[in-house]
């Protein structure tokens, strides 16, 4: 049932939990290098194989926010509905279960986890939370991302 005055319709509610199309992303040397250079992070763990071998990871891993990008598929492929036209990225949250390793093939699948509505200065705002699950080639969940999109 749609609550009186709520902007969240039954049609929108029906989209909760529906998985979007997957994004497959290969964790390659070049991709990690581009990421590290873009944030200007010189940590040898991201780029120096000889160095990384001696750490507890035993090889190169990706920086923590590496998968939080459209290329890696965060929030992608999910059908979103909102009564409003304007959308802003509100924030991102990542939960780490396994390291993201060089050579991994990551499959990202997103779904709408929940909606919230709030009264803002300029009227109602809709918060859509998309949960993206990133799995590696061994079918292990490596990262779970929760991205908030604000439409108003």
């Amino acid at each position, binding site marked *: 049932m749609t609550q009186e005055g709520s902007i969240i319709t039954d049609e929108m509610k029906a989209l909760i939990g529906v998985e979007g199309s997957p994004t497959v992303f290969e964790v390659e040397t070049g*991709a990690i290098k*581009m*990421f590290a*250079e*873009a*944030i*200007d*992070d010189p*940590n*040898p*763990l991201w780029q120096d194989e000889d160095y990384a071998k001696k*750490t*507890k*990871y035993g090889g190169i891993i990706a*920086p*923590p*926010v590496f998968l*939080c*990008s*459209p*290329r890696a598929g965060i929030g992608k492929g999910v059908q979103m509905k909102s009564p409003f036209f304007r959308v*802003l*990225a*509100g*924030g*991102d*949250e*990542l*939960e*780490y279960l396994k390291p993201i390793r060089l050579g991994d093939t990551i499959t990202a699948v997103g779904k709408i986890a929940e909606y919230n509505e709030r009264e803002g200065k300029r009227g109602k705002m809709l918060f859509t939370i998309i949960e993206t699950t990133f799995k590696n080639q061994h079918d292990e969940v490596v990262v779970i991302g*929760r991205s*908030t999109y604000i439409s108003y």
Partner: protein
Amino acid sequence: MARQLYYEDVEVGMDIPPLVKQPTTKQLVQWAGASGDYYELHYDKDFAQAQGFPNVVVHGKLKFGLLGQLLTDWIGEEGSIKKLGCSYRGIDHPGENLVCKGKATNKYVADGEHIVECEIWAENSKGEKTTPGNATVTLPSRG
């Protein structure tokens, strides 16, 4: 890398060593290439001005990436991030200082893991927290 940080070194309220950044237009273009986020607001000045901004805007997720570096630099190789999140509250422009900061807000041992919770943020030259967030990390213990 710097000296490894241990659970015992951390006290609630202590500051994470700040990370001073000044994203350049080049970095924004590098980020677009790395992330695949090619929204023109981040590199086309005419487009940004048509949207009412004085200059191109730093990607929110790029700032999130900087906060990631703040933490990995601090916790060292023996530490791990369990959770990391931030909100995009304010706009930042390239060429301006952006300082990533943080402080420990809680520490405890659970299931044999030595856990530290932190508040983290990126602040502009006016001291405004444009990108506030939180993180949960595990650290090695001397004990």
